[in-house]
């Protein structure tokens, strides 16, 4: 043999695992920033144009300069930060509770056939139920308290989280299940080493959707359930409307939007990291 098998293999391996070209990081950031900046500029222009058209008086619909000026002032106020803190505390605690409920329900339903038959479609049905429809009942049950808000936030988010887990378990690739069986994975070890990690991408998608529902439910709840001496973002919206303070109202809305975007970016980053790790991000060409 002219060439050793080992050397041929090493040669092929080297050829087939070429290192990727290094990315130019500043250019990559710029590439992502400028479209966003453009979108913001377009929105501001349209906003200003609508204000200038004069359909509504300035105190009903403030222009971007007034609203952003108001936002700037508010950033310096303690009450504003207090409101953001209350809202975020409610969002995070409600979301965490929804994760616990969603995981327990999702695990049970994906594992037990009878539960699946009984509750599978109910969970999907719950997802389509507008969370604001729960509030009258929540207020009857818990009164105008934070528990009423938490109740609705959990009901809004948990079905998505449970469904994400169920889908992930269902779509564990059959070939991996067969490999796992041959490797001796059974019951608990099967879940730990195979089914749970395999369902992670779908679970993450469920979390992301669950968060969106939780955030919407929370805003609806904070507008409806106003608790004395507890400023929150929803409550601020409510009072801004009552006082016809449109600059303050729009400024608060911008904050709510920004928080939503930031959390979405965080979920997106987690999803991207997962895809890169698993090799699901390989583009064609």
């Amino acid at each position, binding site marked *: 043999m002219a060439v050793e*098998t080992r050397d041929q293999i090493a040669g092929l391996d080297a050829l087939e695992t070429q290192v990727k070209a290094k990315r130019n990081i500043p250019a990559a950031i710029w590439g992502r920033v400028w479209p966003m900046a453009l979108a913001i500029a377009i929105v501001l222009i349209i906003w200003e144009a609508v204000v200038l058209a004069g359909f509504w008086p300035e105190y009903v619909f403030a222009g971007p300069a007034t609203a952003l000026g108001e936002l700037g002032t508010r950033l310096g106020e303690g009450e504003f930060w207090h409101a953001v803190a209350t809202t975020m505390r409610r969002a995070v605690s409600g979301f965490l509770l929804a994760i616990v409920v969603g995981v327990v329900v999702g695990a049970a339903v994906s594992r037990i056939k009878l539960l699946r038959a009984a509750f599978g479609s109910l969970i999907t049905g719950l997802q389509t139920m507008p969370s604001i429809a729960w509030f009258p009942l929540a207020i009857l049950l818990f009164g105008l308290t934070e528990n009423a808000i938490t109740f609705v936030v959990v009901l809004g988010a948990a079905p998505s989280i449970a469904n994400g887990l169920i889908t992930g378990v269902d779509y564990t690739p059959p070939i991996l299940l067969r490999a796992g069986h041959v490797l001796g994975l059974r019951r608990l070890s099967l879940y730990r080493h195979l089914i749970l990690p395999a369902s992670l991408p779908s679970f993450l998608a469920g979390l992301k959707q669950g968060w969106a529902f939780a955030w919407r439910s929370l805003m609806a709840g904070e507008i409806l359930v106003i608790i004395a001496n507890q400023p929150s973002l929803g409550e601020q919206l409510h009072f801004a409307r009552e006082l016809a303070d449109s600059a303050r109202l729009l400024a608060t809305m911008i904050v709510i939007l920004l928080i939503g975007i930031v959390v979405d970016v965080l979920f997106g980053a987690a999803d991207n990291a997962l895809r890169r*790790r698993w090799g699901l991000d390989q583009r064609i060409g």
Partner: protein
Amino acid sequence: MTAPAQELGHGRTEGPAPAVRLDAVSKVYGRGATSLLALDQVSLSAAQGEFVCLLGASGCGKSTMLNLVAGLDRPSAGTIETGGKQIAMMFQEPALFPWLTVTGNIELALRALDRKKRKERAAELLDVVHLGGFAKKRPHELSGGMRQRVSLARALAQEADVLLMDEPFGALDAMTRDLLHDELERIWRERNLAILFVTHNVREAVRLGDRVVLLSSRPGTVIEDYTVDLERPRRTESAEVAKLAGEITVRLKEEVSRHGR
């Protein structure tokens, strides 16, 4: 040079007990009018250290047979004896877990060992398949041939006596496949494995097997059991391999054309 063994048991199994023995194994899928007989009374055995290639056209139940031996499915009739031997299996796809590194995938088969031993053993096995430098990579960063070698290392990690291989090199290019044939032959020798290797590639079967078992299609039965007495190492492109492969191909074509009538 070759002799189709009429006895299904094959001469070499008279000595020690075979590593795997299928006795009148049948497999039916479905019930009633729509049921499909995939395997019909298949009897077959492989001795420890014997390399048996299962060859047949589509629908001959070769993969079904391996699934039965691996315990992924149950036979409808007949018995499968493995004498408590450890069985490992490789598939056409590498079936590696994408969330684990190369080492992590191999360590999954070494769960019984403690952490330190596990690491050592995984590193040894990676050297066996010449992937020592790729321990920290993830499956998607490797080529198809490399992934299949990781899959082989994972199978070897199970310390199996019997290795089932379901068209493991079917998706690889010819050059990589040739190299992996050499590697598999070396590893098989060193570890005295009993290998059941399913393929539809006649030359591959002759290149690798001590025996080539030809199966009919729908239902799958053993129709011929060739002993390959060619000296090792063989080359896929050699005249001897081509000659026997030619003979077997003629027989296989007869079998396939029977279904067209």
